């Protein structure tokens, strides 16, 4: 079933064209990898899909409804974007992991938080820990579970394994796979990383702001 449909999507800023007429269809529960040289517009495409940037032209349709028919925050709870080298906000790990509950006005579920921390190998991580004392790998994993404490329909991953060592990368990729296969979250991942490219599903390439090929294959 088609979950996300992108038609004629273009983006330019100050006369500079970043993306031109992107057409893309994403099936429910699928895993799409977007590759391409740096500066080709991959991250911009993810930000447009996340409704964090206004497209110059074109439409994004989620479950047969145009983005503009959703309230911005409701849409972003369904289509969640995890940044490249995510920064944590506030002062502590807890500030970040409680935030998804706070914005929904729901009491914090400590059991769910501990389960999620354990799933990414951070089993004894205290919520009071200062974010300034965390390693890059720990930050990225906390950022990732921040996105999925309330599972979105689609998760947008922007080079989330960049800068991680092999061990951390393996944990993150296994978790992402688990989210896709066991929870049914649709993944759209931008990456350069050879290991991440081995993941699964369909791959497309963006070069100079245009979608150049759509090789469909499954592993």
């Amino acid at each position, binding site marked *: 079933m088609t979950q996300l449909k992108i038609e004629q999507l273009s983006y330019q800023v100050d006369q500079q064209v970043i993306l031109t007429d992107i057409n893309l269809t994403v099936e429910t529960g699928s895993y799409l990898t977007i590759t391409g040289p740096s500066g080709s517009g991959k991250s911009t495409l993810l930000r447009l899909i996340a409704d964090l940037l206004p497209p110059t032209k074109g439409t994004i349709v989620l479950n047969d409804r145009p983005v503009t028919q959703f309230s*911005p925050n409701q849409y972003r709870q369904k289509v969640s974007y995890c940044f490249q080298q995510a920064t944590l*906000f506030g002062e502590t790990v807890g500030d970040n992991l409680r935030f998804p509950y706070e914005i929904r006005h729901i009491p914090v579920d400590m059991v769910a938080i501990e389960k999620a921390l354990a799933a990414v190998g951070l089993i004894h991580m205290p919520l009071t820990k200062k974010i300034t004392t965390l390693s890059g790998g720990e930050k990225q994993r906390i950022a990732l579970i921040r*996105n999925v404490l309330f599972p979105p329909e689609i998760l947008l991953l922007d080079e989330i394994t960049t800068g991680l060592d092999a061990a951390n990368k393996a944990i993150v990729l296994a978790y992402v796979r688990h989210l896709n296969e066991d929870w049914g979250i649709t993944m759209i991942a931008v990456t350069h990383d050879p290991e991440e490219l081995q993941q699964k599903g369909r791959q497309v390439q963006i070069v100079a702001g245009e979608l150049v090929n759509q090789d469909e294959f499954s592993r």
Partner: protein
Amino acid sequence: MNLAVNGLSLTFAMTLVLVALIISFHEKIGLEKDLIISVLRAIVQLFIVGYLLKFIFHINDVWLTLLMMLIIIFNAATNAKKRAGKLRKGFLISFIAILISTGVTLGLLVLAGAIKFIPSQIIPITGMIASNSMVAIGLSYRSLRAQFKDERQPVLERLALGATAKQASIAIIRESIRTGMAPTIDSAKTMGLVSLPGMMSGLIFAGIDPVKAIMYQILVTFMLLSATSLGSVIACYLAYRSFYNEREQLLEL
């Protein structure tokens, strides 16, 4: 009363301006033109206000007093707008914030019987409240702007997690309100230790018993705390939306 200032003594006092001018010239600070213009403006504006107030106090009309208050608030809003940079509806937001903060504070003072609704009391107090509210709002704007620039990534992260624009900005709003109020709180802490503030000095100058004078100063401290907090809160909550578009997307600064 023991007030000795006259035209001649003021002329001699102008040598004080020369001191500032010489420093600016000698140290190549380049403020000579600004200094001369600001001094001339101050003289002209104050003379006009002096005669105008004399006239208004003499007429003692409620509508004229209200008009004068409105003019003060309008001028304060115009000035605060300059600090707002490219903020959308900068003037309107400033005007609403200063009008409400001044109105509420003044209203409470009149209701409490601390001041009377007569032009010689209402107009100077309006000026004090509005100017402090104006400064607080200006500081809040600058803080909002600086933080939306520096804290861009955390704001984007919050939005991407499904926060509303308000939820994503609340930390910035709070910090900006704090920034707007800080000078008033700081000066309240050092009141009487560092400076003998304007109202109190003026009354002592005019020969009023210092114990009576400090009571007025305490009143002024309370009213400025109320004015700056109300002004900053209203301005920040109205202004943060200007950093987003209608899809709650954070604009480039």
